[in-house]
């Protein structure tokens, strides 16, 4: 258990008074808005950060964790919010690095290592090749590997910082089975998520944090989602209507028989002005690849992409942007943000030319732009000139959104736009998307979270193994339909 831990980063007081108690055999939920201090608390438990104050006890013994290794030795396993794999090592080695099973003479026993990895993936019900190198794994696959690693540690305390953020329903269910078995095996699980339904699904007790403080800890039964949200936000959250489907206008985007060898095949769909079209499907179904191809990041082998009737050159994001396309990618740390750059520079990154006069960037204009969007999206930051890496996961995601909204795109592609975004903000984002649609922007969304899909989409396209499996309008879509289409149990 952790008591009264405090942690500050420079000016930012990330954690004021975070306390949490975990008991064997329980799944304990930790919730809070973006920037509430959850990950910071996690990193303290993991020995990554040393608390400025407060103490940590394991089995009643006070311990000081000098580093991740120490935490691991103390029986804590952590799944970090942002997967951190070794791209050049095999999946199996990623899981067992530093503790590979040994054969005679302290040599590494590769076979045993792969067998163990395979076994764990078996338990998780995923088909991931332990011998494949990690480079090129999708976020989801990366998350799976992280989970596998944590399980393989057979730790007594397992901390999961938003493990489901990148996963879709099927994988989530698997994960929950695993959590349950872990619990019955007597381990304690600390589970962080912004999806409250998940919390209620597997957790017994909950701790709510607000602005770096523990504001509530009690058993879940008897609590409602509303109670939690109130505790998190500190006020009642007016349930915003996602907004009625705007009158869809002219066809903006027209994707014809798009194909990329081995990733996706024969994808055709359109997005009209003022319409929100969602690509649903299991993780790894190739949705991001389609989006990347449309935006010009990846090349495609066949097919065509036209915007307002004029074809987009393949493999040229610059051209797509010029034509008015915006793209919020799924991996904010690698693709969405330049981590070393300041919040303000990141917001301005896609609008530099608009912000410059006579070829020179106008600093003032840049600042106002950033400040303006920071307010509109309620971004939590220290100074606009701080590196964006200082922001919490959710706030980072908002910065990415701001970067693209600042361009006033005619077509906005958003890949997992609310990944790791807290419930209040998520509502805002949904509202924002709806508003954009109403203003005539066409939106292509990728989401692995069915409630979200059903909530905001006008039309839903389901992908399976790189192909379009089904299409629904919001009216006649249900979670069941989508899941079955995505997994292939579609009757005919």
């Amino acid at each position, binding site marked *: 258990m952790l008591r009264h831990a405090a942690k500050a980063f420079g000016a930012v007081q990330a954690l004021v008074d975070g306390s949490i108690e975990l008991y064997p055999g329980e799944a304990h939920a930790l919730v809070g808005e973006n920037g509430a201090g959850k990950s910071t608390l996690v990193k303290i438990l993991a*020995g990554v950060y040393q608390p400025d104050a*407060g103490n940590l006890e394991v089995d009643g013994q006070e311990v000081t964790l000098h580093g991740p290794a120490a935490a691991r030795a103390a029986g804590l396993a952590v799944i970090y919010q942002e997967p951190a794999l070794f791209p050049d090592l095999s999946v199996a080695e990623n899981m067992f690095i530093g503790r590979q099973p040994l054969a005679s003479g302290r040599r590494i026993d590769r076979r045993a290592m792969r067998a163990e990895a395979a076994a764990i993936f078996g338990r998780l019900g995923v088909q991931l090749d332990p011998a494949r190198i990690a480079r090129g794994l999708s976020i989801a696959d990366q998350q799976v590997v992280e989970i596998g690693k944590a399980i393989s540690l057979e730790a007594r305390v397992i901390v999961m910082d938003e493990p489901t953020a990148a996963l879709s329903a099927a994988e989530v269910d698997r994960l929950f089975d695993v959590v349950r078995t872990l619990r019955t095996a007597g381990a304690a699980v600390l589970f962080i998520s912004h999806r409250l339904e998940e919390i209620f699904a597997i957790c017994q007790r909950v701790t709510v944090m607000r602005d770096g403080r523990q504001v509530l800890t009690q058993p879940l039964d008897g609590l409602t989602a509303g109670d939690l949200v109130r505790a998190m936000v500190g006020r009642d959250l007016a349930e915003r209507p996602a907004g009625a489907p705007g009158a869809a206008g002219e066809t903006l985007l027209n994707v014809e028989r798009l194909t990329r060898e081995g990733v996706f095949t024969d994808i055709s769909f359109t997005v009209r002005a003022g319409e929100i079209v969602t690509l649903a499907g299991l993780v790894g179904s190739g949705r991001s690849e389609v989006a990347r191809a449309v935006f010009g990041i990846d090349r495609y082998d066949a097919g065509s992409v036209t915007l307002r009737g004029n074809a987009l050159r393949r493999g040229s994001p610059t051209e797509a942007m010029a034509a008015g396309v915006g793209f919020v990618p799924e991996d904010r740390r690698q693709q969405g943000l330049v981590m070393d750059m300041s919040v303000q520079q990141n917001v301005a990154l896609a609008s530099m030319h608009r912000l410059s006069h006579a070829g020179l960037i106008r600093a003032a204009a840049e600042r106002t732009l950033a400040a303006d969007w920071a307010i509109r999206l309620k971004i939590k930051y220290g100074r606009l000139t701080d590196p964006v890496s200082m922001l919490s996961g959710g706030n980072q995601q908002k910065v990415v959104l701001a970067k693209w909204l600042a361009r006033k795109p005619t077509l906005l592609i958003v890949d997992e736009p609310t990944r790791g975004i807290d419930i209040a903000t998520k509502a805002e984002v949904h509202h924002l998307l709806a508003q954009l649609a109403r203003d005539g922007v066409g939106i292509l969304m990728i989401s692995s979270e069915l409630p979200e899909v059903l909530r905001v989409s006008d039309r839903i396209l389901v992908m399976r193994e790189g192909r379009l499996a089904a299409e629904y309008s919001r009216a006649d879509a249900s979670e069941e339909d989508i899941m079955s289409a995505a997994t292939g149990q579609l009757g005919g």
Partner: protein
Amino acid sequence: MAPDVDLAAVPPGPGPSGLEALRARAPWAFRWEAGLALIVVIIGIIGTAASPEFLTSNNLFNLGLSNGEIAIMALPMTLIIISGEIDLSVSSTLGMASCLLGFLWARGWPMIAIFVVIALVGLAAGALNGLLVTRVGLPSLAVTIGTLTLYAGVAEILLGPNTVSNFPAAYTNLGVNAVPGTGGAITYSTLIFAVLAVIFGVVLHATPVGRSIFAMGASPEAALYAGIRVKRIKTLLFMVSGLVCSFAGVLYTFRLSTAVANNGVGLELDVVAIVLVGGISIFGGQGSIPGVVLGVLAFAGIQNALLLTNFNQEASGVVAGGLLLLSVFGRNAASYASRLRARVPALRRRTEGPAAGQAAAGSQP
């Protein structure tokens, strides 16, 4: 739970918070450039103390003369390193241009025509680097080590054993005479460096292209997703480098009024060293032109001061290396200071902090 309360009650130390305040008010004081400026001043003082000759216009002239080309080549190198690449072929590009100049002049070409050819060849040399890096996807370190040899080889082919030195005085004087009205202190190469420095500075720090260069250096993928033409800009940077270096080759040739195959051999590491002393991060994404200008001053100043004192010339390498180390540590000292606040309460975790974390940061080429 008394101890807990006590612990929780520990207020942040006043010292660090004061430091924070200062940092907030005067961030520049924490930049490496500030420290470097200080070093330059110190070098100036020591130099003058060591030899009355140091600050004479005559000596400044010599100083500018012997460092002009290196300084000029450092500018494109700065942009390239910030963009996350490196160009080791600068010296052999200089040599190749020098030999081309001699080769064509010996065949009676008019100077203007020669300049045009040299410019084109320089651009082509840079383009080759750029294309191999951006299109084939080879690491620039490897590519430019290769072209370092290749271009030096071309120089050899051009002149072989010959030395060309009958260049018209009108040109060679540029190397010997000072810019009029500067009290004989400023060489033409110094002047050119100053002008280029301003241009490069503006481009890097005030234009979208410059911002893009920082972005692609810090995170190529994010830059791509922001619609920045990473490959194109990088290729252009290498071409600019080729152009500037071949221009430096012309200056070099006229200064020594000699075109010979081994001109400029081995300068590449000096150029890189200067850029690094100037506070450019070798990982890309960080640095400034003013820093590099200061780096040039520090580097040239020290070398020259050593020459004037009867210091054993053989050890100049030791001093240059020392300066280089000082630059990296100095840069960190600045950030140590700013991180002081985070470190103070954590002194007890000596074991973790430095070793692990810092190696993580340090362990990239």
